[in-house]
């Protein structure tokens, strides 16, 4: 199979065909569950649809297919790679939600459907060529994830998390749309490809500055960058674990895709085309990145609930990825996308273990993990690998991707070879990695060294098989991407070229 066969088969809809296949699945699953009332059949159908879409996308991506649909959606190396990331997240979460005791039984068909719809929304964000498409895609994800967060069985925390999420999400929507309206007024267009040239000729008007600030704040809520992060720990704690994975690994990456697609292309283009001074904007993003890293890591130290700790660590990881927004080079963008991929596997894997242990009756407190290594040696080992990878210990994937990402802030393609302007950002990031090791090792210590609390059951633990399979996949990917990063680094380089290639 190659891309020409797919484009012969589907004609002009080929660029959006991976998303269309998934929409079919989203329409199918509620009907299947209504008719059959069997969770395994519904999940099998959803998985078949997602894997079919993933295969089509992988074929198009490996053949360097590029095309546009009606001038609204564009398939290229960047959108293809990001769609692959969102499909991986959706397949991991759907696969484990069938055997999780936290997910709803009554509305399982709708749960599946909403999860696929949020993945499709993320894919449309990666594909769309104007701000209308990006706004609607982001809202498709937000609105379905409000419902997904609340759809947890018998937990008052989920109800509270849902209310908090819907209010803060609505506020961020309002900020975003107000920012888009101001940018539309300042630049007179909603096409992403035209924003750069218009900004270059218009310069910074006050309308544009207001629009930029509100829009960065609005999408800052989506990626949970400090100071827009306060919803994230509550929502991750309240939601069922599969939904937490979708939010931490998928929804956050979607916000970052918006940052890359809209802001990075706009400012790099304006700088290259008409020599606009963008240093002030770069410093805004650098300060956002530095605060996210530092606050995320320091507050994570104080947490006793493991899901909240992972949420704060996720805020810090978003800070690391925002380094690319400050540096705004091709190489830094490659590193950011590489880190987005490895983050899916290591953070997804850590959340999967938490979710699996909740299914067998182990709580979410870090003290509940005392003596886990005796009861479940494999799970304790896998958790150790994921946490060490998040902290950046070689030879795991987290080290390799952080190495590429941080060297993006130092390495300059010019004659000097070193970028002295952003070296402080790399320094803060490395310092933060050291801080983060403290709270990751605390969990490892609880699992391997601490004695279990008196009265706790001591037998060995058997987790559901789907969780085991997903954890093994994440574990293999974390090790493989650490030893052989070229597997994904090459496509990341192509994606960065596709996004910024016109201006290099």
């Amino acid at each position, binding site marked *: 199979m190659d891309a020409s066969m797919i484009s012969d088969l589907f004609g002009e809809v080929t660029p959006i065909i991976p998303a269309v296949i998934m929409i079919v699945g989203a329409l199918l699953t509620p009907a299947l569950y209504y008719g059959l009332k069997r969770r395994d059949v519904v999940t099998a159908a959803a998985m078949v649809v997602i894997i079919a879409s993933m295969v089509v996308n992988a074929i198009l991506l490996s053949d360097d297919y590029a095309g546009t649909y009606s001038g609204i959606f564009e398939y290229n190396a960047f959108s293809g790679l990001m769609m692959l990331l969102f499909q991986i997240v959706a397949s991991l979460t759907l696969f484990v939600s069938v055997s999780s005791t936290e997910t709803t039984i009554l509305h399982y068909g709708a749960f599946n459907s909403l999860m696929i719809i949020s993945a499709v929304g993320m894919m449309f964000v990666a594909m769309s060529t104007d701000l209308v498409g990006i706004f609607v895609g982001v809202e498709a994800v937000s609105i379905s994830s409000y419902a997904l967060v609340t759809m947890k069985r018998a937990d*008052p925390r989920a*109800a*509270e998390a849902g209310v908090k999420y819907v*209010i803060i999400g609505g506020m961020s929507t309002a900020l975003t749309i107000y920012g888009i309206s101001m940018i539309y*007024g300042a630049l007179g267009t909603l096409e992403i490809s035209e924003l750069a040239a218009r900004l270059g000729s218009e310069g910074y008007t006050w309308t544009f500055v207001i629009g930029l600030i509100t829009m960065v704040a609005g999408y800052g809520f989506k990626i949970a960058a400090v100071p827009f992060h306060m919803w994230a720990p509550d929502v991750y704690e309240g939601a069922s674990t599969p939904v937490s994975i979708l939010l931490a690994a998928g929804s956050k990456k979607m916000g970052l895709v918006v940052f890359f697609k809209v802001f990075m292309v706009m400012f790099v283009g304006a700088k290259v085309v008409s020599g606009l001074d963008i240093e002030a904007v770069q410093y805004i993003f650098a300060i956002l990145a530095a605060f996210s890293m530092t606050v995320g890591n320091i507050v994570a130290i104080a947490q006793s609930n493991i899901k909240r700790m992972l949420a704060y660590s996720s805020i810090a990881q978003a800070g690391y990825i925002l380094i690319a927004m400050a540096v705004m080079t091709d190489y830094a963008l490659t590193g950011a996308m590489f880190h987005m991929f490895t983050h899916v596997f290591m953070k997804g894997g850590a959340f999967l273990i938490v979710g699996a242990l909740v299914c067998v009756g182990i709580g979410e407190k870090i003290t509940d993990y005392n003596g886990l290594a005796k009861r479940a040696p494999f799970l304790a080992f896998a958790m150790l690998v994921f946490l060490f990878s998040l902290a950046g210990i070689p030879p795991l994937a987290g080290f390799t991707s952080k190495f590429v990402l941080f060297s993006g802030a130092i390495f300059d393609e010019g004659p000097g070879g070193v970028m002295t302007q952003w070296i402080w950002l790399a320094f803060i990031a490395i310092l933060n990695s050291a801080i983060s090791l403290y709270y990751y090792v605390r969990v490892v210590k609880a699992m391997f060294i601490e004695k279990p609390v008196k009265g706790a059951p001591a037998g060995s633990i058997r987790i559901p098989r789907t969780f085991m399979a997903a954890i093994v996949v994440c574990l293999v990917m974390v090790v493989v991407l650490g030893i052989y990063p070229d597997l994904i680094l090459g496509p990341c380089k192509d994606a960065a070229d596709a996004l910024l290639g016109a201006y290099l």
Partner: protein
Amino acid sequence: MIPIEYFITFGIILFCIGAYGVMSKSSTIVVLMCIELMLNAANINFVAFSAFTGDVMGQVMVIMTISVAAAEVAVGIAIVLNAYKVRKTVSTEGLASMRW
């Protein structure tokens, strides 16, 4: 013709009223209404800019915003109802068991 500054100022006032309401009101239903005000501030901007530049994309965006706002409020009210069923309160002070 009314100058465009009037529309933008009206939008800013509406946006600030909405933002004040979101931050200060304790009933989540009122907070959802204030979010609607903020969304409509953006709609006024879009229509004004669209009419002044003669570009139709702004009006397309308004249709999208209205439908998104409707969907968001529908889901939001359902979530608030669910919270009332589980916790017997919809005030922001009552729904604050998770902090830090």
